């Protein structure tokens, strides 16, 4: 076990994969300097500029070139800096990478991991703060990973690199500095959630940074006599239906929490699925449908809070009463 930050955990996993397979390469802007969040620190020194590739400011071509690299035998990791800039490369991701294997009848595959950090990040305002995981979950051909902890960022990045098809890998910008124990060699399978806390009155489901909010809310709920189960999805496509629906069926109440805008967020998919399949009571907590503001009071309106989660859970959960 080693203590690592969320960014180090990813850098470590990537370094291991690059050592194990010469076909793994990384490309993006400013990677030589370690990436702007230090998530590539040391890699160009170890693997050279041919495999840790500094690129021109050409998001479309970073993504599109990665598709071509993948088709020709490499396993590229693309760095988009923030998901907002990946909006310059959506044709390449959605029309090219995601559909390639299908469109060409399985002649080729695109083993590609696209890292595009999401989330609010101190006063970064409307164009550097989005959480767009719901978009990618809607696109056939894409796997969508949303790690919340260093160990997951290590174990999931390995699994993403091994998937053989395009993976949208969404790290949260306010988690880079978080530290945690990481077990070397760990693999976290895609599609497997983690139950962080068992509970019987209400199920709290979340991912990425909102997991923290749910953990804190569960403590607060416990003091109020409400027993909350907390589930970290870790990947939203595929998502761990068995764990979530099983829990929701047991507790009879599900709250989905995410930092993304609530309207059309992936919480709607989870809530709708749970309502369809278990008939449980559901509630969502997400950001209002507003752009992120620069000034703190405005930015704070886009943050999901412990109080909101507690209120949502209490509105659903009748402590001790099970349907």
């Amino acid at each position, binding site marked *: 076990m080693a203590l690592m930050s969320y960014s180090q955990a990813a850098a470590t996993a990537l370094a291991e994969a690059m050592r194990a397979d010469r076909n793994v390469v990384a490309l993006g802007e400013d990677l030589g300097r370690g990436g702007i969040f230090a998530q590539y620190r040391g890699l160009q020194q170890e693997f050279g500029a041919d495999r840790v590739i500094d690129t021109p400011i050409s998001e479309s*071509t970073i993504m599109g070139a990665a598709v*071509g690299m993948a088709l020709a035998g*490499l396993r590229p990791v693309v760095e988009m800096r923030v998901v907002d800039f990946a909006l310059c490369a959506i044709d390449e991701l959605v029309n090219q990478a995601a559909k*390639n294997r299908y469109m060409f*009848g399985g002649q080729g595959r695109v083993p590609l991991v696209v890292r595009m950090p999401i989330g609010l990040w101190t006063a970064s305002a409307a164009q550097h703060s989005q959480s767009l995981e719901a978009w990618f979950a809607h696109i056939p051909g*894409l796997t969508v990973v949303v790690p919340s902890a260093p160990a997951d960022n290590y174990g999931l990045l390995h699994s993403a690199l091994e*998937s053989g098809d395009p993976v949208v890998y969404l790290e949260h910008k306010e988690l880079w500095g978080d530290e945690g124990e990481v077990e070397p060699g760990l693999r976290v399978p895609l599609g497997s959630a983690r139950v962080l806390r068992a509970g019987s009155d209400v199920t709290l489901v979340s991912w990425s940074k909102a997991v923290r909010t749910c953990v804190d809310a569960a403590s607060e709920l416990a003091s109020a006599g409400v027993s909350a189960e907390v589930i970290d999805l870790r990947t939203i496509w*595929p998502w761990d*239906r068995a764990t979530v629906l099983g829990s929701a069926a047991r507790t009879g109440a599900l709250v989905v929490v995410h930092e993304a805008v609530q309207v059309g967020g992936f919480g709607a998919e989870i809530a709708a699925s749970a309502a369809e399949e278990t008939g449980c009571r559901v509630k969502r907590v997400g950001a209002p449908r507003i752009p992120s503001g620069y000034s703190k009071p405005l930015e704070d309106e886009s943050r999901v809070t412990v109080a909101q989660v507690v209120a949502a859970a209490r509105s659903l959960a009748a402590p001790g009463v099970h349907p």
Partner: protein
Amino acid sequence: MARIRAFENAAEIASQGGVQAWGLKTSAKPALVRGPLHLSTGQEAVAAGVCANLTRKDLLTSTHRGHGHTLAKGADVDRMMAELFGKATGSNRGKGGSMHIADFSVGMLGANGVVAAGMPIAVGAAQALKIRGQPEIVACFFGDGAVNRGPFLEALNWAVVYGLPVLFVCEDNRISATTPTGPMTGGAGAAARAESIGVPAVRVDGNDVEAVDAAAARLVAEVRAGSGPRLLHALTYRFKGHVSVDPGAYRDPAEVARALESDPLTIARDRLVARGVAADDIAAIDAAAAAEIDAAMAAAAAAPLPDPASAYTDIQNTGAGQWR
């Protein structure tokens, strides 16, 4: 060239009554080929002349108008025609159709439904070849309309920055769908833009297959030698409408008539005749092509449609087996 022409003509006939577009109603008669076809009739010399200089292991990216490139790269005609017919025996198992025609087994990495989208893919493939130390190169076809999309700039720049083995081929038929490209293009076009980015470029008569071949031979040799990317700007003409159902009525008939006079097949045939090749030998080439395509048509017509269950395969490995 004769094979491409025969393929395009046969496909065109098979598509009559297919896809509704251009404000036309769908015809009552069901078409053998349902989907849209972008025919390369009249542009055969570019595909043939360039691909004559490629090996089967070289890679190629194409456009929406990709039949000629695919055939010239050596793809199997039966599997191509079956793909247009949407059959299980098609190169893409019926999943892609004309606009996504591909044969990875001969290095043909696919037609593309998005203008210029093959360009970044081509440079990435070339970068993989270079990083992996392989001797092959990539040919990247695109139309004159594509030079006004951002990926043109980005991909050429990228190829220069990393010194990649790519031959860019601008297949310039002077039109983009229904719009003449000239007035939509600032400056002198593909070659001039390429030069400004540091990609040496050559212009050639794209209807003269020998000229295309000669120019491509020189550029391919340079690219293979590791000199970095090159661009071939080939001037040609689209004999048909933009897409199978488009009568192309927006073009001046006199222009079309003039263009038909420099049919690349006629030019090549006349030259062979002038060099003393027997008329019978030339006719035999045409006959062989016709026979090959007829057989492909028959096989495609007879082949089975894909099993609906195959709609759920070839998508992605999520490790979870969940698709809905």
